[in-house]
């Protein structure tokens, strides 16, 4: 079977592997790199549980092949907390009870971080619309929306070293 070489920087570490061309990025991250924080919730790119940042932009990692991620910088949920402290967005989810079972949470938090990165200002409606692609079955979204708004404020207040996904563009 054909295998192709990919080089991907995941959470700051370079990885080089030969993979099947049909391997999805999410399965590459989970099964090859061994980072299982990114979850798989559907097979139609509908749930957002698999959301990661690729070159700083949020991507459903089930919509991308591992080979398409060749040469990119990927950030997963495992990279947000640093030195035993939660990222401001993670902290906001914690403080506002923005999670219950926690299965949607890694994807939700990654989507939220990128939403805040991409928008100067956010209000409730913008958060609801911005998270349209991320489904949660437990929380009814009420506390997630509160958490994202609070996380946005906290991220502005403490811009670095927090959200680390620096490269905004490829190449």
């Amino acid at each position, binding site marked *: *079977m054909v295998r192709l070489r990919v080089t991907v920087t995941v959470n700051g570490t370079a990885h080089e592997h030969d993979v*099947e061309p*049909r391997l999805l990025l999410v399965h590459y991250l*989970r099964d090859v790199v*061994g*980072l*299982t*924080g*990114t*979850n*798989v*919730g*559907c*097979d*139609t790119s*509908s*749930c957002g*549980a698999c959301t990661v940042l690729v070159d700083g932009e949020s991507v459903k990692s089930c919509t991308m092949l591992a080979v398409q991620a060749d040469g990119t910088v990927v950030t*997963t*949920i*495992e990279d*947000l*907390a640093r030195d035993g402290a*939660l990222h401001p967005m*993670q902290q906001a*989810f*914690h*403080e506002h*009870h923005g*999670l*219950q*079972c*926690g*299965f*949607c*949470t*890694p994807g939700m*938090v990654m989507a939220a971080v990128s939403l805040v990165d991409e928008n100067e200002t956010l209000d*409730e409606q913008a*958060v*609801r*619309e911005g*998270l*349209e*692609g*991320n*489904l*949660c*079955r*437990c*929380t*009814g*979204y*009420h*506390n*997630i*929306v509160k958490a994202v708004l609070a996380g946005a404020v906290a991220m502005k207040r403490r811009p670095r070293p927090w959200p680390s996904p620096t490269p905004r563009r490829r190449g």
Partner: protein
Amino acid sequence: MAVTDAPAARVIGTRLLRKEDPALLTGEARFTDDLQIPGALRMAVLRSPFAHARIRGIDTSVAAGMPGVVAVFTGADLRDLWAAPMPCAWPVTEDMKNPEHYPLAIDTVCYAGDGVAVVLARTDVEARDALDAIDVDYEPLPAVVDLEDALSDRVLVHDALGTNTSYVWELHTDAEAVERAFAEAVHTVQERYVQQRLIPMAMEPRACAAVPQPFGGDLTLYSATQIPHILKVMTAVTLGLPEHQLRVVAPAVGGGFGSKLDVYAEELLCVALARKLGVPVRWVEERTENAQATIQGRGQIQEIELAADADGRVTAVRVRLLADMGAYLQLVTPGIPLLGAFLYSGVYDVPAYSFTCTSVFTTLTPTDAYRGAGRPEATYAIERAMDALAARVGLDPTELRMRNFITADRFPYTAPTGLVYDSGNYEGALVRAKELAGYGELRAEQARRRAQGGTRHLGIGVSSYFEMCGLAPSRVLASLNYSAGGWESATVRILPTNKVQVVTGASPHGQGHETSWAMIVAERLGVSPDDVDVLHSDTALSPLGLDTYGSRSLVVGGVAIDMALDKVVEKARAIAAHQLECAEDDLELDAGTFRVKGSPDKELALAAIAFAAFTAHDLPDGMEPNLEAHVTYDPPNFSWPFGTHICVVEVDEETGQVDVLRYVAVDDCGNQVNPMIVEGQVHGGIIQGLAQALFEEAVYDEDGNLRTSTMAEYLVPAASDVPALVTDSTVTPSPTNALGVKGIGEAGTIGSTPAVINAVVDALSHLGVTDVPMPASPLRVWSAIQAARHAGGSQ
């Protein structure tokens, strides 16, 4: 640090942040499919594309030779592995029909998604590739998708049963009184409601892994289950295994809502095949499989009649229910409608009541418990019917409810069904909800809009609910023929360093038990919640338990912990009295320290007692060392949380679009251990119930094919589809347990569905609309408006 450093302030009732969160927020938590299991084979299941077909033959030879494939088995190949068919633990009547059901179909498939063969391969992808190469020769049979059609027995789902009716179950308080009430009634209403089938769609798909020990016969089953304890017993029975050699672990579980309260074919297959081959076997469900082969919820046709006097006081309720079992009876399938049977008279003082349920098989995915399980369905019927009655009598719906409530001074209240409602203040919750919603102004605004004659109509929907919660007393469950108890077990162990271990039989999947249980312990022992470790969801750590469903965890499992704490404290008190040389009665425990009343300097901290109990150097004569207590608690009654929800919608007459403008919920679950967690449960529940009202439906075509088998087709709401919520609570403690708690997990779902549909119908009532079927999609709403116009025009 020592207990004396712990704050003396109360812990119970505070909004303590969850202990569970950090692991979940950082991706560190392990869900079943995250487990690293070296050498595990991947299992994939071939599922029937037909709703009903005879299997003439299966050719697995090509698949068996494919790359990575280790083995392929059909139902016939594995028949000898099962000591008993798949379990159904709720034979509600003696003569209930229950078709034999094995993890893989052998001769006939009875729903689209029924498993017919399995592949074991090195990787998931190889296993799934091989499924395509299995050749099954099917002889299609007619499908039965309509409940009333199923009842006619025109086509049988299971030939051997000779009928599609599984059972008929009745509950009559006094049949004559019901007849008399209807004969004498001034007002009657007769309504028919359809509870569409719902797909629970927990975000984490089902997953399991069976890991055999190479020697000694022990086996561990990891599963994304709500019920590790029940699963262990049932797996042992179904496979004829020694139960003590089986360990079941539920790692982090990504939601269940009842759908992971079951014993599934895939769990049994993983165990059986891991034993057969002597290697670990694991499986994870795809979303389409989740839609087809995980149980579905609801699926009922309800006929409800109310009799009332001239003032609108309800004198009798009569219910006829037709319930869809699907193709087979799963773990508690037949019991679900019975759970609702006790709630159709609602929060009202109804003297006479009768209920009949007929349950039928169809060639569709089996149904079973889904958030609320029978109780949302019942509440929907009575709360919709109460609105219909209010319209008939000409009363505001809240006024009609006030007239009929069981008033606060009547508790404990013995219902005509024989059950005792522990406590309640239904008026209080309604009054508060009206206040928060601005009910008076809303009605005025509605009148204004109607007078102006626009096309965007305002609707205000009310629903007052209660819940038979806790799934409790074993004696009562026995009277319903349920084959398990309603108890829960708990152990509290104060370690020599004064850290505390709690072992619980409840098995959480997002409800925050670790935090709530730690809070109960912290409050009683004066330790920090961080010093409490809660062990759960692993039958090796917690061998006895009945798991988590039916909002039973706090009201049964949490109370068990409180009782175990009583025992531990009692023992600590005896040690303290011994060492301080005083009478036990002279001691009071305050913030983790025993003090001799009246002698403030004579005291002994629990930390010191814990260490003394461990060293056992100086204990009262005959006392066993260590501070540990175990309790199994069988509650004396169900608990009955309640509340009122008010939903405000705007309905566009031209498009049928429903926008929820405001949603207010006032719930009463008795005392709250952690109000933050309570609110979270309420929020999630409301949106799940609102989703039944407006979005969700498992749609089957006439051949029994599921048309909504992906998240792209099945409308799980997103953040942008739902409103912000206004929640509040009243507090009416339960008198049946020392914590005064009731349970809250299903309340939101029970209260919300009727509130939303009542609002939609209310918005359009002046146009002659009296009902809108669920889910109230724009097309359905628009059609209801057209139908009402047409009916109005032809009069």
